[in-house]
Structures are given as C-alpha cells and as structure tokens.
C-alpha cells in the first residue's frame, strides 16, 4: 500500500446529510395535512438554500466524492431505515418502491441522453415493453421470475433496435420526433391489441423468487407483520443499486469517455477514429435494457397494467427527471426522481396540475441551473487515485 497523500475528506458531512434527508423524508411521508406538507416543503427549500449559503452542501459534496464506499452503504441503509419506519404502510412502501423503479429507468435514460446524447422521448414505451413482457411471460410460461425481469430488459433493448435505424439516420429534433411518434404508436398498438388486453389492460402475477412470494406479507412474529410491499422495496433497491454500479463503471471507463466525445462533438470525434453510431447504439441499447428491467419489476409490483400507464406524458416525466437531476449524474437522478414522484402523491391539491408543476420545474431549472440540481462532476476513472 502506498501512503495516503493528503487527508481524506471527513465522513460526517455526508452521513449527516443522508440522515437529515432520511428524517425529512420520513416526516414528509408521515404527515397528512396539506398545510403541514406545504410548511415542510418551504422549510426544506429554506434548509437547502441555507446549507448552500454556509457551505454545508459543498462539504457534503466533497464527502460524497471522497468517501464513496461509505456513502454507497449509508444511502441504502437509510432506505432500509425508511422501510422499517413504514413497515406496515402499504401506500408509502409502494411509493418508495415506485421511486426506485423510476430511478432505474431514469438511469437508463441517462446513459442514452446524458452520456451519448441520444434523445429518447419513448422512455414510457420501453418501460411498457418491460411491463407487458412480464405480464405475458408470467401468465403463459413457468419461467423463473428472475429471468422474466431480464427478459423485460432484453425485449426493450430488441424493440429499441427497430427504432435505431430511423433515430440514427436523423439528428436532434428529428430523432426526438421519431421517439415521440413511437410512444404514441406503442400506446395505440396496445389499445387495439386484444391479445394484450386491449384498453382494459392485463393482470400480472406477483414476483416469486425461488418460493419467496412477494405478494405475501412477511410475518416476523405473531404480532409484527411487514407489508408485502417491503419485498418490492428490497427488490427495487437491489435493481437500482445494480443500475447505479453499472452506470458508474460505464462512466469511469473509455466507453463513458467515448459516449461523451460523441455527444459533445461528432466532427472532432470522427477525426479521431470514433465510430459514432457504435457508441450511440451501445448507449441506446444498454439504456433500454435498464428501462425494460425496471418495467418488468414495476408490472409485477402493480399487479395490473393498462395502456394508459405508458403515455407520452409518462415519457416526459422520465425526461424531466434527467434534466432536473443533472444530466449524467446518477446522484442527481436519485434526488430528482424522489422529488418528481413523491411530491404529487403528497400534495393532493396539485395532482391535477402535475404536468404543470413538472413543466414549471424544468423551465426553472433550464433557466437558472442548466446543468441540473446536482451537476455532473468531472470523470475520475479511479476515485482517490493520485498520480505517482
């Protein structure tokens, strides 16, 4: 081992930050009154502004960057703590699992849009492909559910392959329009397809891994019973952690660099030997794979899916998560997904105005913080690595 050069940043700002956010979220999820929610929101915003002003956010950032291994344990631990607090609350646990599933899907979108610059406004459609794959496979085959989740990803990646040709032959707005058209087409296809349940949708079996039925409550003792959604929270936590680890590896390799180079300057990268479509295809396929896996798990958790779950509006939610969080930064995705999914659920009064809220948030972010809430840091291939 070589001696440490310089001091490692302290663990505490990061841990305190995680604890603070966890406590805040627990209170936020518990509170019922609309006034209380509004007060908490204002309080939370004020706390963030103050923390930024007094440099606490900056200290947290260095802590997160420098003590990555510890943070990687602390954040899932905080999620588990949340689960313990709400262990009997079906609604809240469903919400937590939904957040993590959308996080996984947004990570997929990040590879496409954030890394390689391939616009994809069909996120909901690929999520839907994962869902319907799970529905059909659980109903008609005895395939292990672990494989069903993988199959959801594979199907999304394969069908994404059909879109590749038109998407790669066009640029910018035009390829965006193609993906929009695909979302609309996908929903209509589901609605007229009786084999897939038509507009009424399909029932999906619950997840069952090696005899562990996810749709049964977990009886810990005679009196203490965990909501069956705990199972799904754990499954989605595992999925999102895998997605996170994958995204990081990708980002910290030559592939991540290739995707950046292709996104930032096609002409220059062509002059340095880049096969531009190769990296765009890789990003699109890998991204859809992640989105599809998230979809398969989502379907098994919901137990019922219908075409109305996969509209253009839902695709926009995924895109706004990526924009809001900080294009290309997985931690940003985590924060943004939580905001975008949890906020409308708790603020009942804005349910109807959900999209208004998202649109306003995206506009504000693009105006005042174009790199997102948590901008993507420079690439460190091996964090903590010091040149000799």
């Amino acid at each position: 081992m070589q001696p440490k050069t310089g001091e490692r940043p302290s663990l505490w700002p990061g841990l305190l930050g995680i604890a603070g956010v966890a406590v805040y979220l627990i209170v936020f999820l518990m509170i019922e009154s609309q006034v209380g929610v509004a007060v908490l929101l204002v309080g939370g915003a004020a706390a963030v502004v103050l923390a930024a002003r007094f440099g606490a956010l900056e200290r947290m950032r260095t802590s997160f960057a420098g003590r990555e291994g510890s943070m990687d344990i602390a954040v899932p631990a905080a999620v588990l703590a949340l689960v313990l607090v709400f262990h009997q609350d079906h609604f809240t646990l469903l919400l937590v699992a939904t957040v993590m599933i959308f996080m996984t899907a947004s990570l997929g979108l990040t590879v496409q849009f954030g890394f390689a610059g391939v616009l994809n406004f069909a996120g909901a459609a690929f999520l839907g492909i994962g869902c319907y794959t799970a529905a059909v496979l659980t109903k008609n085959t005895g395939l292990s559910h672990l494989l069903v989740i993988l199959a959801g990803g594979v199907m999304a990646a394969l069908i994404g392959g059909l879109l590749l040709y038109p998407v790669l032959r066009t640029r910018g707005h035009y390829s965006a329009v193609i993906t929009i058209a695909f979302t609309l087409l996908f929903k209509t296809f589901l609605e007229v397809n009786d084999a897939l349940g038509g507009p009424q949708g399909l029932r999906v079996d619950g997840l069952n891994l090696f005899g562990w039925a996810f749709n049964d409550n977990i009886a810990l003792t005679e009196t203490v019973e965990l909501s069956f959604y705990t199972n799904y929270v754990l499954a989605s936590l595992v999925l999102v952690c895998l997605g996170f680890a994958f995204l990081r590896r990708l980002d910290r390799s030559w592939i991540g660099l290739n995707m950046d180079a292709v996104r930032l300057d096609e002409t220059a990268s062509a002059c340095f030997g880049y096969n531009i479509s190769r990296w765009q295809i890789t990003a699109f396929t890998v991204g859809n794979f992640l989105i599809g896996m998230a979809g398969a798990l989502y379907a098994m958790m919901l137990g019922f899916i219908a075409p109305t779950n996969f509209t253009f509006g839902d695709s926009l939610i995924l895109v706004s998560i990526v924009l809001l969080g900080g294009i290309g930064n997985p931690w940003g995705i985590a924060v943004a997904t939580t905001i975008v999914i949890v906020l409308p659920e708790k603020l009942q009064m804005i349910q109807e105005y959900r999209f208004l809220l998202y649109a306003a948030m995206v506009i504000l972010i693009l105006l005042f913080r174009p790199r997102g809430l948590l901008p993507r840091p420079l690439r460190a291939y091996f964090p903590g690595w010091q040149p000799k």
Partner: protein
Amino acid sequence: MAAQVSAVPEPVLATRELGKRFGGVVALEALTLAVAPNEILGLIGPNGSGKTTFFNVVTGIYPADGGAVTFDGRDITRLAPQGVYRAGIARTFQRSRLSLPLSIFDNIMVGNHKRLTQGLWFNLFRRRAFRREFEESYARARELVAVFDPPLADRMFEAVEGLPMIDRRRIEICRALISRPKLLLLDEPSAGMTHDETTQLMDDILQVKDSLADLTIIIIEHEMGVIERITDRCAVLNFGRKICEGSYQEVAADPLVQEAYLGLE
C-alpha cells in the same frame, strides 16, 4: 494539366489534381502538392483560398470531387475521417474543438482512441487491466503535455473550460499527437492568441517536433512572422489554386503572391 513531377523524393503526403467544389464555388482546383518526410510545410493564402478545405478533404470530412490523395504510399482519397486517422494523420481545428466540460486528460484521450481497448467486457469488468492501461496512458499524456508546459501537466484532471486559449491550443495539439501520427495538420494554431502567446506556442511546436522522431507538419497560418520562423517550405493558395511554392523568401518575393495578398491597383 499534367501532374508536376515533384522534386521531393517519396513524399509522406501527395495530392494529385485534387478538386473540391461547393455548388458553383471552386474551393480547390487541381491542387498538386507533395510533402516531404519530417518537413514543416506552411500553407498560406488569403481568406477563402481553400486552405481549410484542403485539410477537410485530406482528412475525409469532405469527399474529394476529383484527383487523389496518397499518404505513406497508400491511396486515402476515399477514406472516411476515421480511416484517415487510423492511417496516421491527426489534426487540430481552426476554431478549437475541444470538449469543454471534460478534463484535460479526457480530451487528450479522445485523440488516443485507436490505442485504447474499446471492448465492453474489458472496460466494465476487467478493471485491473483497465487500470494498467489507464496508468500507462496517463503517463504518456503527462509526458507529452510536459513538453509544452510543465505546470499544465500537473493539472491533468481539471476541466478545459477554465483554461486560457494558449493552454487550449496546447491541449488540442497534444490530443492530435498522443496517437503518434506521422502527419500533423495544424489549422491556424495562433488564432485568437496574442503575439507573445503565439511565439511561445511556436517554440513549443518546434520543441515537440524535435522530441518526436518522424513527424511531418502542415501548418495553416496567417502570421507571416510565424511562417518565416518555423516552416521549411511554403505553398501559397489563392482561389483554390496553388500559385507558388518554395522557401519563405522565394514565396514572399513572388509577384503573384504579393498580388494575392495586397491586391493590384
């Protein structure tokens, strides 16, 4: 017009009757040029005379309308930019085309593309081997940057965004040189820099050329002082045609060149 027999033996790069037109505009007209190994050739001419178009046609960004380009004894006329780079030609751009949000190291590694292992499996799962490749690449990039500017070599993981123009030019040249090309095309490296900075950069270029064996350079430049100082030979273009070729003194004395630059009454 018959191709002129060049006086240079076995040129690194040779173009024969190279032509390129954009609609009615003739950007290159029957350009025949030969570049000898290890020389620095200055490519000069007024604005719009086809210098950058020449680079773009050689590097395959624009397909040639006629004629041929031979590099290292091989016909590269129809190659895409990727193939031209793999053959051993690297370039810089008139308007800096670095990726601003990326670090200095990342930008230089973009130029190192053909020497890096690109497999998905290698990059994601063989982290030990990847680390070795990363460390080797870092050492090489650092060494190259240090030839230009030692302090800059200690800042390899800073974003390019915050750097002054001269450092950006240096990094752009490092990006082109890291893959050890045989031919380097410099498109107006002094653009946007002060006189002193230009002098400094030219010193750097001469120094790096001395430290690398087997490197030929074609440089597009407007500043005559620069041309006089660093080039072995010059070719002058006007309206897409070569109007003169020779040493700086010969070229500067040529009446056609004076006419192209100063105009005639």
